[in-house]
């Protein structure tokens, strides 16, 4: 039984396989997913912050990550439902620097300061 407070996340488009957190979710928190596809329940597998994304379904490695009904990136490893979807498991189809950023701060790690 989860003791974490519930959080909610918004699924923008019915075809999306991720939803955006409307409040911060702790690991194990019940998630209420709202949006045009209707209401559903999920559990956050890890801490996910406001504005960040949670996987709604299993996304295999190499599969598209869909939000707003469009492909926003490609999964770089298998993603489980309830997992945080971000730089550590999703990359841009265009931006070559994608994958070189700190997953929490976004700080670039691909340029030298010395």
């Amino acid at each position: 039984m989860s003791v974490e407070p519930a959080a909610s996340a918004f699924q923008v488009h019915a075809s999306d396989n991720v939803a955006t957190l409307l409040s911060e979710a702790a690991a194990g928190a019940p998630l209420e997913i709202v949006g045009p596809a209707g209401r559903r329940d999920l559990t956050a597998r890890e801490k996910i912050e406001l504005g960040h994304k949670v996987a709604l379904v299993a996304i295999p490695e190499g599969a598209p990550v869909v939000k707003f009904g469009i492909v926003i990136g490609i999964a770089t490893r298998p993603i489980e439902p309830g997992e945080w979807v971000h730089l550590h498991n999703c990359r841009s189809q265009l931006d070559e620097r994608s994958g070189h950023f700190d997953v929490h701060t976004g700080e670039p790690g691909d340029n030298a300061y010395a």
Partner: protein
Amino acid sequence: MPDRAASLVPDRSLGRTPDRVWSGYLRPDGRKGIRNHLLVVYTVECASFVAQEIAKDESDTHVIGFPGCYDNDYAIRLMLALATHPNIGGVLAVGLGCEYTQPHRIAEAVRASGRPAESFFIQEHGGTRLSIAYGKELLASLRARASETAVKVPMTWADLTIGAECGGSDGTSGLAGNPVVGRTFDRLVDRGGSAIFEEVVEMIGLRDLMIARAASPRAAQQLGATYDKMLNYCKAVRQYSVAPGNFAGGLTTIEEKSMGAFAKGGSQPIQGVLRVSERPPHPGLWLLDSVPDEHFMQFGYTNPNDTEGIMDLIAAGAQIVLFITGRGSVIGSAVSPLIKVTGNERTWRNMSEDMDFNASRVLSGELTMDEAAGELMDLIADVASGEPSKPERLGHREFFLMYKHQDVPSLEAGCRV
């Protein structure tokens, strides 16, 4: 968040007064300003200190300028567009005396627009201290003439051009801040006004969506060509408009950021594409292309910061710019007030002195998207009526301009008018 189907509260979606009228400044070209500012323009970095000192402690005086000694047509066009902007009543152009860009030519163009203008070279006025004193004298005289010639007239939505820019975007921007601004743009256009959005570099992957919004076959051709130029540019410089703060705020890729950014364009047909310093030829929704044209120098990072884009929108005639910031930015703007909109409840609380509008209420279900747009329309009318926006109150008047080429006539596929 979708609109609530049935609301128990009174309909706030039309704002307090749907047909508000306020007083503005009629300019000789027929446009109307919501402020009567003076502008000091420096024509090279070497004159910028003197220009800033002239404007210091003058609450109605803003400063713009160009840092380069070698001139740039794009930069001259942009400075002239701002110097003859409806919010500007008079102009002082200050140069060092060595540079290519000529202060007296700027002053002449401003006088031709029906505004008082003066100019001088620092080298002809005895250096820093004497130039500042001379500049302050000229400013006093310009202020007197600008207030004598100011014609106050009634003004309403159809007299407004409003720009939208986002910066410090996060996962809330595409869900709340930008869609609320988009809905506000829809209403402004319905009431006969002009709405302009830019950041073409944040429309990655959206070519078909952009073209589907075109008001005419010509607009569709312009939108397609603008998209293609942008993508070539981004690939060539290997730069995409997504920053560490965006990642920290939950945006994972430029593709994700793009879809959220495009939401600020609302749902009206796009009339066409403006280049920097062009004005909309007729009211409606317009896209502004700030991406450099193909040029052997590959100059001018597009979208180097938010202020550049804001200046481009103001140069197109925007009397107000809506700035959507999820993570919280503390910029304002020279020439036209910025109204800061955030969709992030935490940012609204943490940076309340800087934020004008709390769009996060559509995410909490407190407001529908339409109610939020109604409130934002009210706030726009208040600021247009003379009430200072938060950045104005804090004294912000940021400006940015760098070298760019946007005048290559040979760009193919109909991007050129």
